[in-house]
């Protein structure tokens, strides 16, 4: 009896023992190997998303550029970055969602023996151009950031690099990537969601040169020589027309729609109205793009059919009643509105500026300026007639518009960069446009403060960086901001 019992129980217990540990601990529902292209596609979508979204814990640049302003929850319009941890949201989206996956794609591409050298080089170049783009966004937002020690989990407290040195590195990486692109082979082909395999490599050559042009012109006030070299080298090879515009094309069904549509249209938010700063400027110029940008409203005291509708923006940094102001247009509200990463209009604005700065890029400032304005109006659905009328407006025409070249180009570029809040904010700072301050502020938002998480988990490097840039506050100007 007892022998049977012991044997029986012993068998139950011991048969349950583990023979192959790893087997049981495998995550049987997740992939352990994936193609590099799937990570690259993901990173492209994430970069497009973070630039397109209007989620106020990630991207508030439409507010800081005063294209929009808030109705009741006015903290972000008032430069309160802490309430919703905005810097954390934006920083994480780029480091974790974009750069981490590009790094991984790079690693897998290098290890992929099935690729031809030409295709591998093309893919590596595509990854690198996107990485340069993403880092430039971070630098232009924060100043000094972790770069040489970033995306390395073995170093949990990466040091911050000097922003201008990061720029140097980005420019040389860009040159290296551009030199590797070979139009006789493909890259990620249809997995490249920016161009979907159409004229793939030539498109990337133009995109890469446009990024180089943008980086170059950004340095113009601080390192004119470097700026001149980069701009002159890139000018002829950048985007040539609106047909070359680089954008991420969303689909009409969730979850692959434009995140702006998800938040604002699907979410039925009434948190934002048009910002008076941009609306007033466009009204003063009778700008033909207004219907594409904003809704027109009836401001008569007793509204009735047949009233003249107008464009009216809310006061920046104050409570605004949703129903009393224009809001974003149906164009902006489309679920498949593309997220623009670079367009021909900004290239021409940069070239106009380059001419004014004496760089050898061909053409005249006025010519490039007119090209830029034309491209913008047409891309927003305006007609050739709209363009010619607008360019004849003495407040618009390059020769008669008032102010320095920076102001003239700046104002039009500011208008053209509607719905590209990050780019608009960067150009406002770079070209020295003066925007009204919210009531509680004494300085424009010249940069984002560092994420609160960095204060808590990377404190020594954070403190060093804060000291190096002149203090971790919103008034501190970035190294290229000499206005």
């Amino acid at each position, binding site marked *: 009896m007892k022998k049977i019992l012991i044997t029986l129980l012993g068998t139950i217990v011991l048969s*349950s023992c583990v023979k192959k*540990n790893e087997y049981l*601990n495998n995550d049987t529902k997740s992939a*352990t*190997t994936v193609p590099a292209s799937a990570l690259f596609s993901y990173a492209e979508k994430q970069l497009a998303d973070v630039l397109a979204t209007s989620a106020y814990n990630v991207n508030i640049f439409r507010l800081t550029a005063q294209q929009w302003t808030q109705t009741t929850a006015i903290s972000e319009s008032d430069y309160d970055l802490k309430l919703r941890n905005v810097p954390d949201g934006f920083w994480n989206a780029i480091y974790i969602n974009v750069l981490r996956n590009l790094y991984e794609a790079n690693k897998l591409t290098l290890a992929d023996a099935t690729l031809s050298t030409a295709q591998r080089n093309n893919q590596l170049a595509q990854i690198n151009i996107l990485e340069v783009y993403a880092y430039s966004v971070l630098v232009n937002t924060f100043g000094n*950031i972790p770069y040489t020690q970033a*995306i390395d989990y073995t170093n949990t407290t990466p040091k911050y690099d000097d922003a201008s040195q990061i720029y140097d590195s980005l420019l040389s990486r860009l040159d290296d990537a551009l030199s590797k692109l070979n139009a006789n082979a493909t890259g990620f082909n249809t997995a490249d969601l920016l161009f979907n395999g159409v004229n793939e490599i030539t498109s990337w050559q133009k995109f890469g040169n446009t990024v180089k042009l943008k980086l170059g012109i950004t340095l113009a006030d601080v390192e004119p020589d470097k700026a001149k070299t980069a701009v002159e080298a890139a000018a002829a090879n950048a985007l040539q027309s609106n047909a070359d515009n680089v954008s991420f094309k969303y689909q009409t069904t*969730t979850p692959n729609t434009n995140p702006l549509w998800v938040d604002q249209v699907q979410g039925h938010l009434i948190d934002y109205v048009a910002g008076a700063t941009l609306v007033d400027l466009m009204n003063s110029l009778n700008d033909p793009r207004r219907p594409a940008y904003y809704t027109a409203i009836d401001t008569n005291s007793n509204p009735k059919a047949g009233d003249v509708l107008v464009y009216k923006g809310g006061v920046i940094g104050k409570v605004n*009643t949703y129903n009393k102001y224009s809001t974003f247009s149906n164009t902006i509200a489309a679920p498949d509105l593309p997220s623009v990463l670079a367009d021909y209009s900004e290239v021409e604005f940069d070239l106009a500026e380059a001419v004014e700065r004496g760089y050898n890029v061909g053409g005249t400032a006025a010519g490039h300026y007119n090209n830029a304005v034309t491209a913008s109006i047409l891309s927003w659905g305006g007609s050739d007639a709209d363009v010619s009328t607008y360019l004849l407006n003495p407040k618009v025409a390059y020769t008669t518009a008032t102010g320095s070249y920076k102001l003239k180009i700046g104002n039009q570029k500011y208008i053209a960069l509607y719905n590209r809040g990050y780019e608009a904010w960067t150009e406002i700072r770079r070209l020295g446009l003066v925007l009204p301050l919210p009531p509680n502020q004494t300085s424009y938002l010249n940069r984002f403060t560092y994420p609160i998480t960095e204060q808590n988990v990377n404190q020594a490097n954070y403190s060093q960086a804060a000291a190096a840039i002149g203090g971790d506050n919103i008034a501190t100007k970035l190294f290229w901001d000499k206005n």
Partner: protein
Amino acid sequence: MMKPILFKWLALFTFLCPFITLAQQQVVHGNVGDQQGGLPGVSVKIKNTTRGTITDGKGDYAIKASNGEILVFSFVGYNNLEIEVDRVTINATLTHNDKQLGEVVVVALGLSRNKNELPYSAQTISGAEVNTNRNTNVLEELSGKIAGAQIKQSNDIGGSTNIVLRGPKSLSGSNQPLFVVDGVPVDNSSDLELGGTSNVTQNQRNGKGGYDYGSPGADVNPDDIASITVLKGAASTALYGSRAANGAIIITTKKGSKGLNVTLNTGVQFGSVDKSTFAKYQKEYGAGYGPYYDPNTPGSHFDYTDILGNGVKQLVVPTYDDASYGQKFDPSLLVYDWRSLDPTSPYYHKQTPWVAAKNDPSTFFVHPYTLNNSLFIDGGTDKGNYKLGYTRSDDYGILPNSSVGKNLFNFGGSYKLTDKLTAQASVNYTQTAGKGRGGTGFGGQNGEPMNLLQNFREFWQVNVDVKDLKDAYFRTQSNDNWNVKSPTDLSSAYWDNPYFVQYQNYETDSRDRFFGNVSLDYKLFSWLDILGRASEDYYNEFQEQRINVGSVVTPSSYYRLNRTYKENNYDLLLNFNKAITSDISFKGVLGLNARRQNINSISASTNGGLVIPGLFALSNSVNPIDYPVEEVDQKVVTGIFGGATFGYKDLFFLDGTLRRDQSTTLPEKNNTYYYPSIAGSFVFSSLLKDYTWLSNGKVKLNYAEVGNDALAHRINEVYDKSTNFGSEPLYYVSTVRNNADLKPERTKSFEAGLEASFLKNRLGFDFTYYKNNTINQILPVSVSTATGYSGLYVNSGNVQNKGVEVSVNGTPLKSNDFSWNINVNFAKNTNEVLALYNGVNNYQLAAYKGGVTTNATVGEAYGTLRGTDFVYVNGQKEVDATGHYVFTNNSNNNIGNANPDWTGGVYNAFRYKNFTLSFLVDFSHGGSIYDVDMVFGLWTGLYPETAGLNDLGNPKRNSLATGGGVILPGVHADGTPNTTRIDASQNQSAYGYQTAPNKAFVYDASYIKLREAALTYSVPASFVQRIGAVKAIDISLNGRNLWIIHKNIPYADPEDGLGAGSAYQGVQLGSYPNVRRYGFNLKFSF
């Protein structure tokens, strides 16, 4: 001394004998207990006869006896007690057997040990202490009764209960103790813990929206509990190996006793919201954020629109704005409010006076009540015993349409197959069904449910009458609402009609659970038992969440989660019990344990909205649904262990254990690990027998190391999947990096204690000092996200908890008719983070709105709150030239800590004849709460602080020109007091987050509560006898959470948290009010 007493009794007995035999026999019954309550299994005999019985699971007995006969109560470990029969109800209180055997305590693995032998601290409470109150959640009933247990309960219906013994040890884990029922582990992981690192649960952890599905440990039937032993230190739990590093709660269920016993309980409880824990509203000013509206209206506080279509403009309340910084109420001012915009309302297109609502949001709460009925049958013979129980409970919560119902079935039995072989089985089946649980945290985004409490506490118009909202909803069953976007767009802006939320967007959930075990015990020799045991804990959970068409949260959606949890344990135990010499005793155990755990879940949700409103099915999705999320977690742990206890003359005891575990969740090279423990005790009272005032005295000393493995899937890297973009697949790197070099966690624990009792156990205390260090913790250490990861799994840290626990029990008064027992628990724990990962000096646990984070910082206690602070000048708050506070730019200032300084409870029980009155006061001192409800509630002008008069006697909200405004207390940089009056008339002016740093919203979490009280009356037997078969009737009145005697946080219950799990402590957001409960229970014994 014994002899004279005995002689006296004998003489009396002999004298009475003739009368007794002639006397009419009657049923005598009563309850036998000790200071802790009823004792099951006590032998009750009629002296000098063979007649006898034993007490049932609650300590009740009934026996036929005649007046004058002597009842002899005897039980191992207690002094015999003899009472002459002179009435039909005879209750008896047994005292511990001085200087002999102590009480028997169930310890690790279901082993029992005499309390005197125990070289570590183990606190036991009786079943009566947890089931007298008829609370449907047994976990809450531990509150205040266990020294060193910090218990936080959620006030939402069926919400989770967070239990931490001797301070938080694990930086990222749950810190909750292991739950063991009859020797078998029973899962108590909260939904959030099972959900692991998924985005949903991470978001909830950081204060975002979700539901609190409660603690599965509440599936244990309180009516079935005989006793609960809490093992707090590692030495006591080392035999459990990997999983009891946070201590263990050992529950022993009732066993059948001889004869046939039937107990029927029927109870009802009513509740009411404790007003001191809910928002109070200012009643002077109505809707709006300030003077931002039409300048042609009073105070620029209204819209001026023609809503009637007659060409005339009307004063229209800004319905879309969720704040109360508007126009001063004035009954003579007639306005059009939300009701006048609703075509179904009797007020449609009608003006109404501008007044504060009669019914504020506190009237939204309905009276909660609980029905709780149970039937227990038990019985036994010489061969075996059984018990069979069924409990049905229905809890109805404070939110309309919310309920949690439970069916609990319990069966247990043992049978002696032969003289040597005993078979035992226990089967429990529980069903829990919840509906309409309240949302938690900051909901309403990304498809998360709304938290109505956040609505009521942070964003509200005090002119809105809840009664009108109720009428509006029930008129149309649709979202007719106060917070409409405009007169022409009646969709909701930020908040739904709360009735719509509870009746249309409710969740439902169910858990069907089976847990039980079968065992065979074979007595091989008189000194050796072999026990084989197989057990299973299995449950099936189903959760459904709904957002109907017409809600603020868009798109409408339906989400469902199915999860099964299964754990099997197979144990083989060899129990030794043999005296080596007449002086040296030996008890030992050798065993094998195999554990298999499998968690399997699938969840899916509609995409892009619901096609047909009100149809909550995945197929009713506007767009094709996304991939369901599947998770499979498996774990196998095999353990071999042994332990030995040596005793010398009942004077010295030495206990040692060693366990070896092998776990599949660790890398193969590190997956085998050992836990040793060594413990000793010295019963000094055995040497001091001449000191009769000393009943018992013992010192104890122990050291142990226990450890823990990892969660499943923490070793290998995997990629996560995102929805395909067209035909292109999207994958991404997991945001938390795994680690192929993980080692087991380890807790090193030292404990020293002194226990003594005096004056025949009338007074006793138990003092324990402990220190434990948890090292090599496996945790997702948060790192600079510039690494590309939000966290890395590492072995990290050294968290130290040290402290003292004192429990004192006494019987200051005792006579046949009257007794008073008192039990006091006190504990102080000091927590310090000694080290973190590789030079990292701070680990961020969670981040909340406003930039406040919960942290573990080297050199500080776990749970430090960080955020912006005031700037101080000589200890006073600095104010700038404009009269506003200056605050720090950085957000890493220490602004508080979630841990209490000390906790405790005082339990009193008075017995007078058939009445017993007991009550428990518990308290917690220190600790902080960051109150997000105040951050926003002040900003939107809801609370009385934002209205009323200023120091000049003028309304604060008047303009500065008319004598309004306030002077913030503080000083200028040069130390001179602030004298500048600032505007207080709108949201951005004087109160709320824009004008004060995070520190301003950190409150002291201390409290003193009258936790429970019960008055029980045992109906006299003379009356009971008339009701046929009934042996006893007990009537009790009970109450719970009756009175918050003291607290420092305004408008809230300092205990309410965001849910179970350590990172949640120290913050309140949309917090639920405390509910006072009053109950009535009838207990019949047959």
